[in-house]
């Protein structure tokens, strides 16, 4: 879902960069030394996930992992995803440097939204609720990213509904797979390291 260089017009790029800068500054303010290794690991996961191609469906799609990034990191997923996208742009030529801002927003904002929606629910004592919200988190993050990508393409490609439909349909398999991945992560972390999931109840760093 990386938007390539040269597709978008300058106002969209600037807006994207400004929004990304805002998100990143919020993320950096919340950066806690103890969180840094976790940010790095999830950033690496996001970086590598783009290589895992999902061979189902009409178009070329890959895993994104922005749901689990958002769920575990909250606003910190902005810096995490920015670093991963920058490296993907430099090393893999996915996306690009000028579109870095808008791509970061498109991937990280859904993560933050999912964090606010689900971080309480995944710690719910009823297993069904916590697992279902894990799935919903992974699913919804990709869905929202698809919508945001379609929105950013409106000025380049005209019809929003057409682009949105195309991207959402192409990413349906990814949504389901990411839902399952997030579900497994939630199930696993709940047993092994439940404090990682308690994002919202954690004390603020400073």
């Amino acid at each position: 879902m990386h938007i390539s260089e040269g597709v978008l017009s300058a106002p969209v790029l600037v807006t994207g960069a400004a929004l990304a800068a805002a998100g990143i500054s919020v993320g950096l303010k919340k950066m806690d030394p103890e969180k840094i290794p976790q940010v790095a690991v999830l950033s690496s996961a996001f970086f590598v996930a783009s290589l895992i191609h999902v061979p189902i469906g009409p178009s070329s799609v890959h895993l994104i992992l922005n749901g689990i990034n958002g769920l575990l990191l909250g606003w910190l997923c902005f810096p995490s995803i920015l670093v991963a996208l920058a490296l993907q742009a430099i090393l893999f030529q996915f996306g690009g440097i000028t579109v870095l801002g808008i791509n970061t927003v498109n991937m990280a904002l859904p993560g933050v939204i999912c964090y606010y929606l689900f971080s309480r629910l995944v710690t719910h004592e009823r297993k069904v609720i916590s697992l279902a919200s894990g799935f919903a988190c992974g699913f919804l993050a990709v869905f929202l990213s698809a919508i945001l990508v379609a929105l950013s393409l409106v000025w380049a490609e005209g019809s929003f509904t057409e682009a949105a439909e195309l991207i959402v349909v192409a990413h349906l398999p990814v949504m389901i797979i990411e839902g399952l991945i997030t579900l497994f992560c939630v199930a696993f972390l709940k047993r092994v390291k439940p404090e990682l999931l308690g994002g919202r109840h954690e004390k603020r760093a400073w």
Partner: protein
Amino acid sequence: MKNVHGSVIVIAIFLGTLVSMSATALAHKVNIFAWVEGDRVFTESKFSGGKKAKGAQVLVFDKEGQQLLEGKTDSKGSFSFRIPKLTDLRIVLNAGTGHRAEWTITESEIRQAWYQEETQEVAPPRQVSGNLGLGKEEIQELIDESLERRLRPIVNMLVDLQAKGPSMTEVICGIGYIMGLMGVALYFLSRRKKEGGNDHD
């Protein structure tokens, strides 16, 4: 606690599948590759990893950014056109949903291809032509044909090289960078902490 083992195994299987899927590393970028043959330009478009970009829009611009022509790739991801003008040709592939790639053919490249044709035409008739009972043009055609046949695999190889996905080196390199950044971040935060601590002393 049986469930713990269950989920660990499931995750292990899942990660295993993911890794094996990534072994055939298909990825997310679109490429266009173009070359001149005679008075035509041939292009091939692929997503990195080898999936062909079918029915994608191809736009051709000249040096000044004026659009010269427009076309669509066929089911093999290829598209060819007659060179409309002797200029730098900027070929833009628009594969939809934000996927875009560019390839530039310089004027000198086109000149070279044309120049070769011209010199071949003005070249003095060879003696063999008489001996074999073949006209110059027929020989030319035969040579072109066999060259095309021989060069085809090489051109295909070049196209594949263009569309090659990221290598393991780049993946490891990226992860290394992230770990390095983590180190830098931790270093600065630990220094800040220390300075804060000294203030209290």
